[in-house]
């Protein structure tokens, strides 16, 4: 996260770290139910097998997991059948954990948006992750406040790519607070009046965040995928062979 700050322990209890073998942290992910998480499809490029992955929850410092962290194996990885690597469209995956997590103050699911529920342009939301900070990779979970940007305005920043309805844009013209490599799959969440946080985006792509190229970050639009997510959970819970 560029232009962010260190988050307090337990501030984002749905944030998880998707880790693989020796690489350690590869991508962010988001807990949406006791046995289910979301991330983006491009994190699995070339490493589609569930055995290669584990999910760590309740984490703040990558280097010192601490007593609140929980580590889960991955039972299934369900990449959206329409994921398109070239234009990074339909960039979403549902991850089934080996077993249910234990809900604690440091491990909690986030809310999925209701059908058609979207954040209003110019409202402020939060992104979190252990990705590049522009000059280094952090150990402690970073958080940054970003502003939701309309798709039309967003398209004007990216004449090399097409912004589709499956995408959501957030950030600032000057790119001052933005997600970056290593944040992929992590959450963009907005708080409602009752102090409840809803997941509207998964960090997906953007301009090269440690260069002078400016512009917002692009997130997978979770609202667009909520019916598909619910359907995958139903199929993999109740329609096993």
């Amino acid at each position: 996260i560029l232009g962010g700050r260190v988050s307090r322990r337990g501030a984002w209890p749905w944030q998880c770290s998707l880790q693989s073998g020796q690489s350690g942290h590869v991508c962010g992910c988001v807990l949406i139910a006791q046995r289910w998480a979301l991330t983006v499809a491009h994190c699995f490029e070339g490493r589609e097998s569930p055995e290669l992955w584990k999910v760590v929850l309740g984490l703040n410092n990558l280097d010192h997991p601490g007593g609140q962290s929980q580590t889960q194996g991955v039972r299934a990885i369900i990449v959206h059948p329409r994921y398109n690597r070239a234009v990074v469209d339909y960039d979403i995956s549902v991850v089934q954990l080996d077993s249910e997590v234990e809900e604690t103050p440091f491990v909690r699911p986030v809310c999925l948006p209701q059908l058609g529920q979207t954040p209003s342009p110019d409202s402020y939301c939060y992104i979190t992750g252990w990705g590049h900070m522009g000059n280094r990779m952090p150990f402690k979970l970073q958080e940054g406040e970003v502003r939701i940007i309309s798709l039309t305005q967003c398209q004007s920043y990216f004449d090399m790519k097409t912004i589709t309805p499956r995408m959501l844009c957030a950030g600032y013209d000057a790119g001052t607070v933005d997600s970056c490599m290593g944040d992929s799959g992590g959450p963009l969440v907005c708080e409602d009046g009752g102090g409840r946080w809803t997941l509207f985006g998964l960090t997906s792509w953007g301009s090269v965040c440690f260069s002078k190229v400016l512009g917002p970050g692009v997130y997978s639009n979770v609202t667009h995928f909520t019916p598909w997510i619910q359907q995958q959970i139903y199929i993999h819970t109740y329609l096993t062979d």
Partner: protein
Amino acid sequence: CIAPSCPTACVGGNAACDPRNHNCTRCEPISLELCMNLPYNLTSFPNFLGHLSQRETSVSWESSLFPALVQTGCYQYLMFYACTLLVPKCDPVSLQKVPPCRSLCRSAKEKCESVLGIVGLQWPEDSDCSQFPEDGGNATCLLPEPGVDECSPSHFKCRSGRCVLASKRCDGHLDCDDHSDEDDCGCSERALWECPGSNVCIKASMICDGFPDCPLLVDEDNCSVCRDNELSCNNHQCVHRTLWCDGRKDCRDSSDEWDCVSLSDGSGPVLTVFRTAAEYQICADEWNHQLSHLTCRQLGLGVPSSVSMVTDQPGVPGRRRWLHVHPEWNQRNGSALQARLEKRSHACHSRKRVSLVCTREECGLRPAVGMYSHRKKR
């Protein structure tokens, strides 16, 4: 090869694999779409940027950087040079990599490095030109032959010769310097299929693929011809009506078991199941709390907050169809609600239906954040 015998990768590729040799070199066909129009079609890895495979190259940052840089027109043979780094030529006889000539590297770097500087990016450091042989020396190296294509298959070539990314063809923005990327944008001119009733173009592969793409979803119409007693799955396979919503997957995409349970009904949240694609009420006589839990979870609606039994109004139109709780409903662990119900010859004695209200499970709260708020120290 370090191992006593060559690993299969070498043996399979009839490579020259000398046990004393520390690596097995072999040529492989180029599969990177970006470089499928080169004057050679065999490559070998690792490449000159340190990537170990074409798959790694295909998701590398350089494979996005170079096509974007080509659009600036900074150097006529930039794409050719980039491909000699990304998928280096492999000589089928010696099985050795053939590098680009130093002059080609220098030309590309001199003309394009400054463009990257404008956006705060560096030229890929692995491509230091001194590692490549001088052209004309005794080491063979690659130079662009006349007629080599300046654009890659991932580009659209403007009439003026410039290259723009294929995704910009007919995207409504004028990208070519001569605007030719927005000419002839009819669907048929681009070998695409035009959605009836709109000017949306889709690839032929998107027709009847289970995903609606046209505004009126017409690309998913008339995709299967099922018999009267069959229904069409989402993937347009035909499945017998009696198999619909029985709790077992019969469609390859399992769509015969989608949307089988519903809580909406004219008269409040009454539970209905679409067994054999007909609407059934659930007889409340043997209903229980576990089934209420299962129903709410299966619908992704959380947990039950209230359950009630609704008596049928007298004179309800037509004969209702009833499903009853299966006697072995709890032997079927892991199965969906519709698998735990059964038809019976008789109607529902009490004529009471199940009405259920679910509430979303707790989510989106941050209890740990409150833990710090009591500390008022300054």
